[in-house]
């Protein structure tokens, strides 16, 4: 029998075995971190009471309860309305901005681009708060408009306003995909159209935009999906009028019933995932399709930018208007609010100027710890996270076996679980999995949840770095006799170093911005600014919220400045 299974080669068995177990350990840990919390939610949703209670039974009572609740259906309808509206607003605008920035001779466009991307780097909680203090019933811009024109013709506490704000602040998500598709589009197909006699506008309509349709479709699904994830915005802007969406409905369930109704929350969570997971799978298919389309492209090369002529002013006004509404208004509102004690009609800025908000933050150890934790989770935690993602990346790099495909799909799973639900699931894991319970009140719990929630995003960064390493470089290493492990350490890793540092910066910004994942994990010891903002906002501590929000913006701003300084690509 031994003769039937000859050893295929005489490679050092120890190294191979070690590598194999290292790889399986990585895959096993990843699977546990992703599937553990999710299966806990599924299990909990099928119980009649919280899973730590004695008198629970298995069944679909929880689903029956929420399906009988009219608020649930109202919230679901609102979610669909808002998500659809966001697609209608964000996709055309994002595509248009991308075309202007990539293909035309608009002046100052390299300088404008970071501003277009800013809304995607600021926490939605912070942005929403910014809109309240800037454009709410007694916001700065509202009061100024009343003083100047006698009327401020807007209100922000409606579904329409929420949809518009959410749509506008998600334009960068479309912009990123549309502009990278345009970048990859060979200019020869456009030049062919111009030689055939097409004007710049005709080129855009007949050739460029149809050719990036797969990317636009992909971002439409993405935006629709993000619409179901919205939490901060409907929490802040929907609350005054009692407008609920699915995520806020889940969040308010506890208040509504007065008891920890984990089984109902789990059931709502499963309903949300049942909508988002298919969307994630559709996105994956669309992305593959978009790449196939890109392979038919012509030769990408130097091209003369399309001259806009007098249209340049309109394009310029469009971009400035967009930046004003999505960046200047909310951020200036927060910046002002952080330095005043109160604001309203008839109040003069010079009389209410104060640093009390920051003093309060400084005097309260919880808030100081929140700032420290936020910085730590972004820097040290971010580095550890990138290290973990890299390990997972290497476990699948240039291996086309079942395990690689398993990891491919595995990393998509957290993408479908909104941060709020993931945080809840991790809370349960830490509470009721005894070996982990001592870590519950340490920042580790927060870090683990963050890392799993952003797994798909991070893996995309890592694998795009890995893919840039030409396979010949690694094959050359193997042909001179290096093992896989040695090649990874001594060839691939050094080559992707700058990509990893870039990923670290992006992960830093994402972690500074994150808020919903921490909502349920917030406890003495695990404070982070994002989750603190949610809890303080619920408590009505506007001054502290403003000060903390400004500090949060500054932290993200530092990351953004460093990224721009070192030329880190803000998108893949």
């Amino acid at each position, binding site marked *: 029998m031994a003769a039937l299974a000859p050893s295929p080669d005489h490679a050092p068995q120890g190294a191979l075995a070690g590598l194999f177990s290292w790889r399986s350990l990585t895959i096993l840990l990843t699977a546990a971190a992703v599937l553990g919390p999710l299966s806990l939610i599924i299990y909990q949703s099928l119980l009649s009471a919280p899973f730590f209670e004695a008198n629970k039974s298995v069944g679909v009572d929880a689903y029956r309860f929420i399906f009988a609740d009219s608020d649930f259906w109202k919230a679901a309808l609102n979610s669909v309305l808002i998500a659809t509206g966001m697609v209608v607003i964000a996709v055309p605008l994002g595509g248009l901005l991308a075309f202007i920035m990539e293909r035309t001779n608009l002046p100052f466009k390299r300088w404008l681009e970071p501003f277009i991307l800013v809304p995607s780097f600021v926490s939605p909680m912070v942005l929403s708060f910014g809109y309240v203090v800037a454009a709410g019933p007694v916001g700065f811009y509202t009061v100024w408009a009343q003083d100047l024109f006698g009327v401020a013709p807007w209100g922000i506490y409606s579904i329409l306003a929420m949809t518009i704000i959410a749509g506008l602040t998600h334009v960068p998500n479309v912009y990123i995909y549309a502009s990278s598709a345009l970048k990859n589009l*060979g200019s020869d197909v456009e*030049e062919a*159209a*111009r030689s*055939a006699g097409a004007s710049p506008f005709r080129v855009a309509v007949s*050739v460029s935009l149809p050719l990036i349709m797969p990317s636009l479709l992909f971002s439409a699904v993405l935006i629709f999906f993000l619409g179901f994830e919205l939490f901060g915005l409907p929490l802040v802007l929907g609350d005054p009028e009692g407008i609920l969406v699915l995520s806020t409905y889940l969040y308010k369930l506890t208040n509504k019933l007065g008891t920890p109704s984990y089984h109902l929350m789990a059931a709502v969570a499963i309903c949300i995932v049942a909508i988002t997971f298919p969307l994630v799978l559709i996105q994956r298919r669309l992305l593959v399709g978009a790449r196939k389309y890109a392979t*038919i492209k*012509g*030769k990408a090369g130097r091209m003369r930018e399309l*001259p806009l002529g007098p249209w340049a002013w309109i394009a310029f006004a469009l971009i400035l208007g967009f930046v004003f509404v999505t960046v200047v208004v909310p951020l200036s509102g927060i910046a002002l609010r952080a330095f005043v004690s109160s604001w309203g009609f008839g109040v003069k800025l010079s009389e209410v100027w104060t640093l009390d908000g920051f003093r309060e933050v400084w005097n309260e150890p919880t808030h100081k710890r929140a700032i420290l934790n936020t910085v730590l989770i972004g820097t040290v935690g971010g580095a550890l996270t990138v290290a973990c993602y890299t390990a997972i990346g290497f476990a699948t790099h240039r291996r086309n076996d079942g395990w690689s495909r398993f990891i491919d799909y595995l990393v998509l799973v957290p993408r479908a679980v909104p941060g709020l639900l993931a945080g809840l699931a991790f809370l349960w894991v830490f509470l009721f999995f005894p070996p982990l319970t001592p870590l519950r009140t340490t920042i580790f719990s927060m870090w683990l949840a963050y890392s799993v929630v952003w797994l798909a995003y991070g893996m995309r960064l890592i694998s795009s770095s890995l893919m840039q390493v030409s396979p010949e470089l690694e094959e050359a290493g193997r042909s001179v006799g290096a093992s896989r492990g040695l090649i990874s350490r001594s060839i691939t890793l050094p080559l992707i170093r700058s990509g990893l540092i870039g990923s670290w910066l992006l992960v830093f910004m994402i972690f500074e911005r994150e808020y919903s994942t921490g909502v349920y994990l917030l406890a003495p010891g695990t404070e982070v600014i994002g989750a603190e903002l949610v809890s303080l906002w619920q408590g009505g501590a506007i001054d502290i919220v403003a000060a903390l929000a400004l500090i949060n913006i500054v932290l993200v701003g530092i990351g953004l400045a460093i990224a721009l300084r070192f030329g880190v690509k803000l998108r893949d």
Partner: protein
Amino acid sequence: MAELSVQDLHLAYGDNPILKGVSMDLNRGEVVSLLGPSGSGKTTLLRAVAGLEAPNRGTISIGAKKVFDGAGAVDIPAEARNLGLVFQSYALWPHKTVSDNVAFGLKLRKVASGEIDSRVKKALSELSLGHLGARFPHQLSGGQQQRVAIARALVYNPPVILMDEPLSNLDAKLREEARAWLRTLILEMQLSALVVTHDQGEAMAMSDRILLLNNGVIEQQGTPQDMYNTPRTLFAADFMGSNNRLEGRIEEVRGGDAKLVGEGWTLWGRKAESARQGEKGTGMIRLERVRLAGGPGDNVLQPELATSMFLGDKWEHIFHLGNTTLRAHGPEALAKGRQWLEIPRADFWVF
């Protein structure tokens, strides 16, 4: 009257000059090839004519109309120049069918839809693509894609058709067929065409006139026969055809002839303008002009045979003469040892 006229065209990318004063004419019904090594500026010249590159100086006229004038700030955009352009990559629009690709230029010219149909059909059938109108570009073979690209550029009857390496994306065998086909098509349709190529064989086979570009200037221009048989510079001689090259010193000049002397050999050849008595010189002869001689004679060398290669229709022999390698064609294999090689005076150029 020239259909296309370029005068003293200069173009630079930043500090890097690409075209350094190029002038050329293209007459009606004429095929002109822009030939040159990569980096010589031939594609840039074509793209500047198309309006896809911005020259710094000079003029470009199509017919009587000036489309670019560096001094007068005339710069007609690409879409208004009414030229047909065939891309190296073909640049077919992947989201449009073959018919729609061809029809696009007519649609932009507001041609009535019935006429569009008939003209597209006619263009496709002329290029033997009649049955492929409903297909998408990715469903076609390379040769078919190339013909669609040509049909797309021809359908609106532009005065000049520009082709950027039209054959380079085809495989070797198909390329030879396409070359003959394209030449026939151009003659039949009486097109005025400017063709960029880096392949001298292709340039000679397809064109009435060749412009040889080197480093942003025109090195020499003329008919294929002129270019091949009477190159004026070493570069032109070397670029056209396969050659033997002999380095030596010009010891004597007598009339139009020069005596080139190397290590252990002396040859007479035709003196080029640049050759000076007493200076170093380079001798050059086309491979096929070297003759295997039976014995000593005028301009005969006696090199050592290194090896022989069978090419099918002939043999190629490789000889060593000191440090110089010589190659010659012959009908049969040769015996080892020294051989007599005649370098005919009239076919040997001394630069």
